[in-house]
């Protein structure tokens, strides 16, 4: 009787410890997700500046311009990592366009304003990359933990589900960088 009671108490304690570990890993992951979100918003905040810097070289159609500027507001509406991935792909299309433009207009590439913007963008992209690596590291740790047997049973009972990694889009992998020469880019 006492042995059975002791076993039950030990099991309850084990479940509590496992539950708390899962929760702590999940919270760390969500925290890194919100940091990633902040970094991405910082990136989208720069879009008007980029448009302003290239306006003498490229005339956007009103509709296209609206779509580009709306990337910022769409960033606020991102609910999960899939939304972020979709928006990221659109942003990369826009940046490839800017890249091409800077290649075609050397004076744009050499302008002080554009060069400063390029540095700011490089810094933001590096920060995004760091936030993505952090997020993915936490997702990996959390996903692995809740997949292990018998922890997966407890995870299932308490509704802990697997999270998706923040993938780099194909354009992002192919494009050397946003604007100009950013050779420190890395893949996850």
């Amino acid at each position, binding site marked *: 009787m006492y042995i059975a009671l002791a076993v039950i108490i030990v099991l309850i304690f084990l479940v509590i410890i496992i539950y708390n570990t899962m929760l702590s890993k999940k919270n760390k992951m969500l925290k890194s997700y919100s940091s990633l979100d902040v970094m991405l918003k910082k990136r989208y905040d720069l879009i008007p500046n980029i448009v302003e810097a290239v306006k003498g070289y490229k005339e956007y159609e009103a509709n296209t311009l609206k779509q580009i500027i709306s990337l910022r507001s769409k960033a606020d509406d991102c609910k999960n990592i899939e939304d972020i991935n979709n928006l990221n792909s659109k942003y990369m299309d826009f940046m490839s366009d800017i890249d091409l433009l800077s290649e075609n207009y050397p004076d744009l590439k050499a302008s002080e304003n554009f060069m400063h913007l390029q540095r700011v963008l490089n810094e933001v992209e590096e920060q995004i990359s760091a936030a993505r690596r952090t997020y993915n590291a936490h997702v990996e740790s959390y996903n692995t933990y809740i997949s292990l047997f018998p922890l997966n049973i407890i995870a299932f009972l308490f509704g802990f589900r697997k999270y998706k990694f923040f993938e780099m889009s194909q354009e992002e992998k192919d494009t050397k960088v946003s604007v100009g020469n950013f050779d420190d880019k*890395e893949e996850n």
Partner: protein
Amino acid sequence: MEEKFSEFYEYYNDKLKDIYSKFNKIKKKVEAKYLIAMIIFIVLFLMASYQLDLLIDNSFIFVILGVTVIAICVIVAIYIRLRKEMYNLNKYIIEDIIKFISQDESSIFEPNKRISIENIKDMELFNLENLQYNGKNAIGTDYNSNYMNFADMEIYYYKDVLREETYYDSKGNPYTKKVIDKVKKTIFSGCYISATLNKRIAEHIYLIPNNFSDVIINGAIKDYITYSGEEIELENLEFSKKYKVYSDDEIQARYILSLALMEKINNIDEIFEGKKYIVFKEGRRFVICLEGFKIENLRKTLLPFNSKSSKVKENIKYIFRNLYKFFEIYDVLDLGNDLYVDKN
């Protein structure tokens, strides 16, 4: 490096002649001074020998021996003095090499200066409440618009070691007394290098050698090392084998320690094999402490007294190659690029 050295040696030939002409002037003066001293000593010795009747057949051998000893002593004294002069002239060679590599004419080499206590405190790596530090051979130069400092640095503490000593009283009975000896334990002995970082950060990031605890002989690591933050596991396995990374901000640590930079830090091993402590300081400062490497060893690499000796080029090359390593670190880590922040 070879190409750069050949370029330097060609450019430096005239200056080297100046250094040797300066040295030869000193050499002549020293030799003249010491030879006069030797003659005076020998004359005095001979006079004393004459007074003591030592110049007779049987004792004459002792007089020759005495004169030989005086001559050897004077030759040794001349050699020591000339080495000291060459050691002093070596300062200019090191300074000229630094100026050549960095292309900064205002570069300075101050053998008697050390890294300031503020710089070490600012690093927030070594706990100076329990540790003492010393150093010399401070170098300051501007390389690619980036101000760099190098200096020899030693961080140490004194450990009280208790031992028993046996004494004897007046009756010859033994008794023991406990004696405390202060034994010097070195935590770090090597070179401090500081440069401007090409990224801006808000928190310190520490890279501590994985086997650091080996150097702590007694006491808690925290008594000697003041790094803070959580340990961060990074993706590069080779890098993780070498360093433990601590920071209060994980994203920022990953921002600085990009996959490319971790690879570059691994590559520093090809330049310096020893243990390395790396601190990315709040703001835009980068500090690397290289265990075992000392500028003083380069100062002690003296040129031969004869300017025609093949050792002249060999020794200058040795000094050049080692000083070049400091700048190689800067180049390998690509700290000079302005991809992220304006240089000024």
